[in-house]
């Protein structure tokens, strides 16, 4: 089967997030950049499904500046076969990302597109669903386990209140949740091989997509800081505070 996996370049989840001095955005200079953790899970799932279903191809795609090449190479080092960078510098909204991905999908014709459920920087959790709708495909978001069999994907999803199982005809979109798998580390030979794997560059123009700005970013602020709390000496002191000061019990 053929798999397409989307990877977004994001700030490291372990990095301290700070606004730039002029508050025009999040400080990224000197900050480690990684593959969105959910996308790493998506890559891993595609690699495993490729093995389980008797081979095929795993293609990874990123939209961004040339810097995103590093994240594509990370996915190739894990074992993906080929990369595509849709080169774009500047703001993008969810709709723009979806329309670019739609064109890539129409070109590549994958059986399944694996994506992350959410980018840990912008936290929108929209992209998989948008792409599914513009393609007219079924979707299984927040995937906890995936079985590809008989021309369909049977997916257990992490939902509020329990686990939901849905089936989608192929081709379909699946977005990875945290517990779908544990992504492998790239091996040294994997990293060496990744350097020679094909990586094509495309542009919105070449894909015939005219990006328009439908979402205007007005500004950033830091959230209100909580006032410092206090340490209490023992259980008796805690219960006293909860009862008489916070009036919470």
């Amino acid at each position, binding site marked *: 089967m053929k798999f397409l996996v989307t990877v977004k370049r994001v700030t490291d989840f372990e990095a301290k*997030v700070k*606004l730039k001095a002029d508050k025009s955005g999040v400080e990224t200079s000197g900050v480690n950049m990684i593959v969105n953790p959910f996308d790493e899970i998506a890559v891993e799932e595609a690699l495993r499904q490729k093995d389980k279903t008797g081979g095929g191809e795993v293609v990874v795609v990123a939209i961004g500046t040339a810097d995103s090449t590093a994240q594509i190479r990370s996915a190739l080092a894990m074992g993906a076969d080929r990369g595509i960078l849709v080169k774009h510098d500047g703001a993008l*909204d*969810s*709709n723009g990302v*979806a329309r670019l991905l739609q064109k890539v999908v129409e070109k590549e014709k994958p059986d399944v597109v694996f994506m992350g*459920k959410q980018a*840990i920087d912008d*936290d*929108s*959790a929209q*992209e998989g*669903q*948008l792409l*599914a*709708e*513009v393609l007219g*495909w*079924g*979707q299984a*978001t*927040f995937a*906890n386990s995936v079985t590809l069999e008989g021309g369909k994907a049977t997916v257990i999803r*992490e*939902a*509020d*209140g*329990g*686990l*939901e*199982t*849905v*089936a989608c005809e192929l081709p379909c979109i699946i977005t990875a*949740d*945290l*517990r779908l798998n544990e992504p492998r580390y790239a091996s040294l030979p994997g990293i060496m091989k990744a350097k020679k794997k094909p990586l094509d560059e495309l542009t919105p123009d070449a894909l015939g997509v005219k990006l328009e700005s*439908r*979402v*205007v*970013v*007005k*500004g950033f*602020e*830091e*959230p209100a800081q909580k006032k*410092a*709390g*206090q*340490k*209490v000496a*023992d*259980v*008796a002191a*805690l*219960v006293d*505070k*909860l009862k008489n000061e*916070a009036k*919470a*019990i």
Partner: protein
Amino acid sequence: MATHLIVVEHQSGKLNKATLSAFAAAAKVGGDMHALVLGQGVGDIAKAVAPYAKKVHVGEHAGLKDRLAQPYAKCIADVAGSLGATHVWAAASSAGKDVLPRVAARLDAAMASDICAVIDEKTFKRPMWAGNVIGTVELATAKKVITVRPTEFSAPAAGAPGEIGAVSVDPGASKMSFVKFDAVVSDRPALADARVIVAAGRGVKGPEGIKGVLEPLADALGAAIGASRAVCDAGWAPNDWQIGQTGKVVAPELYFAVGLSGAIQHVAGMKGSKCIVAINKDPEAPIFQVADYGLVGDLFKVVPELTEAIKKAKG
């Protein structure tokens, strides 16, 4: 003037109260309030939301028995289109997140996810980077789709019940089908509704720690139990218990973080709690930075003592 369509979420015949936050957010914009209830046999749900809407549209169809994103999105977009809705809203629950982006695609609307404030009819604030940054964003399309963070908007006051009427819906052809739902069964309050939450971190060391140490505390308080990602990943608790950036966002009146380090991804889901208590054996644990009251100690010793003391204090 704005025309709002609020997508009403329900599960097992009950209204999901998170939906009321979407009514509250829409009310901040002002305009006509319409509610949409989809499913089968959902008359009671329509009655439950009537006090918040001018009109409740009830779309019943055999194809909507199970909530699947593709058919639901089509019906929501169709109704929004025929109403001339300017704004479509839902709670940022797992169902809201699943369905609303597809509605946005169908309506060719820009969408803002998980908003925490309404500035005006097109401008919203939303938490990003695990809540470390609040972004202000303007949706520049004529139609707008928005999901609302339930903890940031309290339920609006009930008014005179609006009119309830049927609307014809056609789910269309779908590439998806429902197989089953395995519910987490529990006698405890749901995390979203709980006044008190006791959250387990990796420090509880296993499911026995939750059962033997945290459950008695939760029982004494009538609390819900939540967990860190580490605890869910280890399989000590259902995934549905995960609180945080990529789990549930909660804001109870009282939150106990027990044996939980306080990673930003966890804090993102609970820092709105009114009163936070941290119990951790490491005095340097970051959770103490967000706690109103911190107690340094071994949870296996401290929590049973606390349980007893709370039982006494409550008489």
